[in-house]
């Protein structure tokens, strides 16, 4: 049979009783075999549950979470995403390719760049894509985008 102290037995077991309440329940337990027995059974259930098998966190789950929360994806992760979402990436990729080709083409000519290609808008567009995280910075070869300097190309 269940006494009014019964609901407090689990709290006692868990060390979650205020001191005053605890001494009242403990006093009752000394006089009441029913509640003492119930406490014993609750203790067994708790032991069964706390001794249950634990599963280690799977390594692939850690990797999957990290892949989703990484703020700045690696170059290869970006490539994988590029492959997964070609429509989204197409404009950025095309722009990048165009800018690269344009730069090499200009360098192959012995002329000042401002005569030929307005690189400014292309670079601005690229910066915007980078700022909006559409292209990771390491997706680009840095020197391809450095402003043409006087010693290099403007020497004539």
């Amino acid at each position, binding site marked *: 049979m269940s006494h009014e102290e*019964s*609901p407090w*037995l*689990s*709290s006692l077991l*868990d060390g*979650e009783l205020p001191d005053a309440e605890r001494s009242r329940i403990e006093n009752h337990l000394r006089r009441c075999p029913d509640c003492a027995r119930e406490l014993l*059974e*609750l203790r*067994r*259930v*708790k032991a*069964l*549950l*706390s001794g*249950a*098998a*634990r*599963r*280690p*966190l*799977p390594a692939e*789950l*850690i990797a*999957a*979470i*990290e892949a*989703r*929360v*990484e*703020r*700045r994806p690696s170059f290869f992760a970006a490539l994988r995403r590029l492959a997964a979402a070609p429509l989204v990436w197409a404009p950025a990729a095309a722009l990048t390719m165009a800018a690269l080709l344009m730069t090499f083409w200009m360098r192959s000519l012995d002329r000042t760049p401002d005569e030929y290609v307005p690189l400014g808008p292309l670079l601005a567009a690229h910066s915007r894509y980078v700022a909006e995280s559409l292209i990771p910075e390491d997706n680009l070869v840095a020197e391809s985008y450095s402003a043409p300097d006087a010693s290099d190309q403007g020497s004539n």
Partner: protein
Amino acid sequence: MDTDPAGDFSELIRLAGEKAYNFAYRLAGNEPDARDLVQEAFVRAYAHFGAYDRHRPFETWLLRILHNIYLDGVRRYAHGHTVSLDAPAPAEETSWEEILPGGDGDLTAEMERRENDALLQKAMESVPLHYRTAVTLCDMEDLSYEQIGEVMSCPVGTVRSRIHQGRILIKAAYERLERKGAPR
């Protein structure tokens, strides 16, 4: 800002992940769903990291998110089915013989452990969700009543009675299953 939030977060995944995964497993009852729950909980925690109060344990906050995702899923499922969070789920009528491969008594210790665990999980799943959640958080994940109240969005008094009732119900279900199927 010098620190890399993604780097800090990796540390948190390693610190709180095991607890989250085991809690999720006991909620969902299977590993694929547990993995999905944990992944979703971490992704949402990361997205709302600004709302996390750093003076409180991260794991409590994470488990609260995970629990809410699970409840959301259950409610969505319940929308098209007859499921109540407070009433016992209709118990699957799987007998001990069906869980056991042989029942001829020559089981290895490991198999026995797994079967006992399966039996315990089955017993827990026959108990109303709110009760077994409180018991899981207390006995398996070692949370205080106050932390459990935070995870389950309820006062400590409610936690107290859910744990007590939950243990009584789990014990009864476990013994019933043992009696029903024990081959020996």
